[in-house]
């Protein structure tokens, strides 16, 4: 029993989130106020983030493993757990209005609807409570359980634990995408995401079974030692297994050619869910891919770096170019997230710990700047979804427009923002590993994406307003915007601030 308590102690953040989710499920019918549920969820996420951070700090010297080597607690896992918990907290803050109902602006006069900005006024006469919408407790329980799955996936030290964590994450994501059952686009997005997602999961499972067939193990360390014992690059079945595993994980991060679900899912899902998928889900996929590449298949680094280079290069090209022709803001951000998945993969190509920590830095900063961009979309309500609606926003809401400018500059990668730091570290890592062509491609495509993002800036600052000013948004959205903006600025001004925490996984 003592051993079990030690094992459970390694899972404090996960247990925190699971426990909260179970309580919310039990009380789902009794809690109707979304502000209560959101507060509970944010608190749970903060406690989980603190616990994960504290454990990462405590165990920074010696790596802890538990449950017979299924789970590990190291700097790498705790870094991503803090990131996931933060993304959960931000997504929860952004959901505050959504789960209450659909915002109905003043239709007759065209004047902005009056809502006061205080924390208790989420329900106003202007908010229609939509009976078809899920109850807030169920929605937040799904968010919490998805985050639990992500946390398991990032600390998994075994292919089956990894698969289990990723499945918990994706099963909750399917429901979250389709949770607005009264919107046909939401249902369509959920079905598309589910069909492609289950196919990708099957591919990954097939890869796991082949890897087990070749090496006789599912644990990362056992796989690594089995491969080094038999010699590398000799077994074609092992290469197929690596290809299938990479494909399954590339689906989770929406890298080309496994990206097709992302634009539809993001567009159909409600914006906070899309934000959560684009950030936390992608960070989890990257974390899992990093551990699989650097620990389990370390000795196949040559093959892996070729596969990852192709995935990264194509994702950057496709994501950047298709984003140019988008007129829907969420689709634009989806293609941008595909390009960013490519950039994030650049770090893993080198196969070195330095490269992995470059990707970790990228993932961390990417989560906050994307969350910020989505926060602005959410804050503007219906208006935020269409690109043309951003015309003249700077004249109507200078603060919101300035924040959007900050996030868009960061997504482009312009110096004083976090995006520059992120792109700098991954491109530096690619150059150090000798892939100069890929580095040039990454920089050239940055220019293409600059056109994409700056187009929004031009609309905001250089056009006349076409629509009435958007209503004020809830305090929770302000809080999320503030946090995202703060991290985006700090990450740009102090580029080395993440370096001590971005510890690559080791054996």
């Amino acid at each position, binding site marked *: 029993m003592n051993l079990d308590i030690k094992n459970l102690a390694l899972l404090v953040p996960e247990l925190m989130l699971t426990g909260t989710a179970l309580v919310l*499920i*039990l009380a*789902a019918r009794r809690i109707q106020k979304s502000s209560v549920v959101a507060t509970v969820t944010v608190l749970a996420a903060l406690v989980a983030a603190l616990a994960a951070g504290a454990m990462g700090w405590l165990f920074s010297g010696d790596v802890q493993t538990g449950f017979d080597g299924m789970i590990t607690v190291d700097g790498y896992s705790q870094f991503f757990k803090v990131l996931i918990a933060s993304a959960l907290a931000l997504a929860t803050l952004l959901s505050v209005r959504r789960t209450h109902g659909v915002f109905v602006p003043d239709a007759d006069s065209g004047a902005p609807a009056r809502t006061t900005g205080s924390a208790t006024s989420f329900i106003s006469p202007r908010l229609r409570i939509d009976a078809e919408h899920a109850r807030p407790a169920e929605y937040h329980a799904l968010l919490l359980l998805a985050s639990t799955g992500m946390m398991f996936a990032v600390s998994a030290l075994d292919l089956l634990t990894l698969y289990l964590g990723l499945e918990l994450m994706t099963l909750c994501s399917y429901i979250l995408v389709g949770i607005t059952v009264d919107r046909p686009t939401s249902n369509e997005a959920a079905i598309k995401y589910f069909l492609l997602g289950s196919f990708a999961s099957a591919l990954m499972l097939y890869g796991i079974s082949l890897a087990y067939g070749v090496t006789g193990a599912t644990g990362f360390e056992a796989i690594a030692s089995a491969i080094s014992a038999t010699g590398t690059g000799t077994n074609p079945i092992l290469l197929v297994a690596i290809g299938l595993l990479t494909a399954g994980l590339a689906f989770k991060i929406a890298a080309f050619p496994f990206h097709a679900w992302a634009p539809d899912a993001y567009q159909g899902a409600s914006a906070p869910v899309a934000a959560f998928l684009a950030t936390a889900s992608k960070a989890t996929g990257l974390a899992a891919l990093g551990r699989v590449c650097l620990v389990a298949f370390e000795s196949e680094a040559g093959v892996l770096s070729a596969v990852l280079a192709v995935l990264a290069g194509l994702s950057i090209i496709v994501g950047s170019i298709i984003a140019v022709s988008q007129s829907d803001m969420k689709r634009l951000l989806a293609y941008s997230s595909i390009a960013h998945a490519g950039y994030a993969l650049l770090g893993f190509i080198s196969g070195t710990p330095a490269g992995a920590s470059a990707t970790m830095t990228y993932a961390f900063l990417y989560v906050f700047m994307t969350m910020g961009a989505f926060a602005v979309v959410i804050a503007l309500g219906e208006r935020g979804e269409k690109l043309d609606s951003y015309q003249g926003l700077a004249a109507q809401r200078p603060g919101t427009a300035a924040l959007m400018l900050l996030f868009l500059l960061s997504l482009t990668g312009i110096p004083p923002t976090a995006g520059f730091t992120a792109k700098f570290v991954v491109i530096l890592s690619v150059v150090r590993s000798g892939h100069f062509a890929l580095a040039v491609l990454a920089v050239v495509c940055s220019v293409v994406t600059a056109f994409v993002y700056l187009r929004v800036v031009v609309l905001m600052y250089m056009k006349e307003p076409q629509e009435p000013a958007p209503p004020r948004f809830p305090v929770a959205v302000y809080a999320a915007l503030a946090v995202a903006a703060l991290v985006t600025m700090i990450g740009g001004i102090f580029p080395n601030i993440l370096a001590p925490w971005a510890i690559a996984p080791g054996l």
Partner: protein
Amino acid sequence: MSEQYIEYIGIAASFLLAGGIAGAMVVLASTLGKKKPSTVKSEPFECGQKPFSVPGGKLAIKFYLTAILFILFDVELVFLYPWAVIYRTLGMEGLVKMGIFLGILMVGYVYAWDNGALKWQ
């Protein structure tokens, strides 16, 4: 034939026998049998189903709920049987762990009950 394949001979033989008997019955029936075709007989046949109908007929959602609830209890039972067999060996630790497992499963059950999934109306 090498030693390791000998044990598969039985399987191969039963495959051949099964295929042979089934094939022979189909062939014999179609060559030797008398044929008196009628409209009903030449319809594509599936036990009791109408051969042609408009697809996408409505199915009550409560069957779906029943099926989901069945899975909930079925998974529980699948775990409970082997646990009961080695219950004494596992001792107190096994009891606590099973309690946690059932507790989490019961949350789902209580949720379903609470939301009226058990009412058949």
